[in-house]
């Protein structure tokens, strides 16, 4: 599998070249174009239990709905091009068995099939209610394509750093984190507009995006007319 990112850094597009029989797994809706002999199958059970009904419930009632499609080049080499919803850069990370990758929900584009994506792992749920974020845990071997809202900064961290949660794209398992309020007091944190921040420590890689989708949405949303109920 060869992945080539084009049109960086603002409207990046991932070109995936598949060998015969190779499969790439991408977030639902990411496909821009593909060779005519590439086969698509939708992964309906991703993200939890309950079968079809459970999936529909999650999709319509909101919450974490994360669906992927699998693209296979049948019989001959094929190509699939993928783009995320948000404008910005994309980067490929080679995942290996010695570490896990925690990916912010809106930052996952694609990965080699065989890499396992877990939405229900311990520790992350609940922290981000109000921030509307969820994280995926990716483990295995192979390339993972990440996208950013805006520009991507790749930091190899050895020490500590305080980061606004909405600006996190992904981080590796060598980093420990605690969720804290941004300022000294609760009122200050609410008023400072910073909300929750992640205090990272340890050794690992951290990717940040130069825009916060939640903040962008709030700013533009405030200017739009009220929805009619």
């Amino acid at each position: 599998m060869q992945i080539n990112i084009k049109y960086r850094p603002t409207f990046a597009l991932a070109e995936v070249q598949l060998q015969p029989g190779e499969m790439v797994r991408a977030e639902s809706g990411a496909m821009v174009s593909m060779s005519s002999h590439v086969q698509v199958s939708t992964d309906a059970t991703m993200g939890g239990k309950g079968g079809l009904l459970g999936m529909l419930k999650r999709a319509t009632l909101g919450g974490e709905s994360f669906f992927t499609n699998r693209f296979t080049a049948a019989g001959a080499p094929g190509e699939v091009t993928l783009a995320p919803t948000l404008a910005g850069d994309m980067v490929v990370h080679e995942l290996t068995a010695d570490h896990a990758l925690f990916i912010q929900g809106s930052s996952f584009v694609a990965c080699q099939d065989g890499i396992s994506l877990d939405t229900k792992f311990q520790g992350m749920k609940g922290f981000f209610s109000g921030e509307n974020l969820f994280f995926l845990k990716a483990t295995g071997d192979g390339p993972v394509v990440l996208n950013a809202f805006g520009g991507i900064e790749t930091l190899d961290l050895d020490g500590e750093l305080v980061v606004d949660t909405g600006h996190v794209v992904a981080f590796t398992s060598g980093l420990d984190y605690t969720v804290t309020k941004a300022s000294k007091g609760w009122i200050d944190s609410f008023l400072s507009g910073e909300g929750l921040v992640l205090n990272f420590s340890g050794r690992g890689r951290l990717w940040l995006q130069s825009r916060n989708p939640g903040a962008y949405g709030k700013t533009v949303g405030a200017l739009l007319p009220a929805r009619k109920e």
Partner: protein
Amino acid sequence: MEHVVEHGPAFAWLRVGLAPGETIQAEAGAMVRRDVGVGMDTRLNAGYAAGFFRKIMAFFVALVRKMLGGETLFVNTFTGPASGSSEVVLAPSLSGQIVHHKLDGRTQLIVQAGSYLASTGSIDTKLRWGGLRMLLSREGLFLLECTGQGDLFITSYGDIIPVQVDGDYVVDTGHMVAYEGNLDFTVGGAGGGLKGLFLSGEGLVMTFRGTGTLYLQSRNVQGLVGWLTPMLR
């Protein structure tokens, strides 16, 4: 203060390094990341106020600035630690560019209220009413007069284009970010009278006269709002 703009012109952010005790003030919500030693304090966006009565006044001024000027109610001040790494990264919420403007205490920069990101030193911002006609255009309704000494960082929706004005110059109100120098402006329709105002789709324009520098942005937030609105169900 060391500062660099990265990821511009479309998704620019500002990275600064603070000397021990050095401070930078930023609009609420702008922080992306900071080193653990950097201190962060939150206060009302109304200048420095001491004493009980002044604090009440400061609260009302900040509230007015938020409701009418679209600025944030609070600002955050970051302080460099005595030792250790002292980096802070700030970003605005919309897509676009960030430019640095040095104020020397003698000149002022007039900035569209939503375009303020951060400032250092003794820079003070005074809210100024843009004029009654500006009421029809949501942008540029309130302007900030920035004076004092220090580094000022302004943002734009789109890229920032500086224009040297010597004489007359006409600008769409939604594309005006800031101006300085000996410039005055009047607000009116683009031309074609009342019919032109409503049918040309151009809205209001500012006619600048004098000598100075005008800063424009290559995109218009009201354009985005107009494009999205019919899509809402």
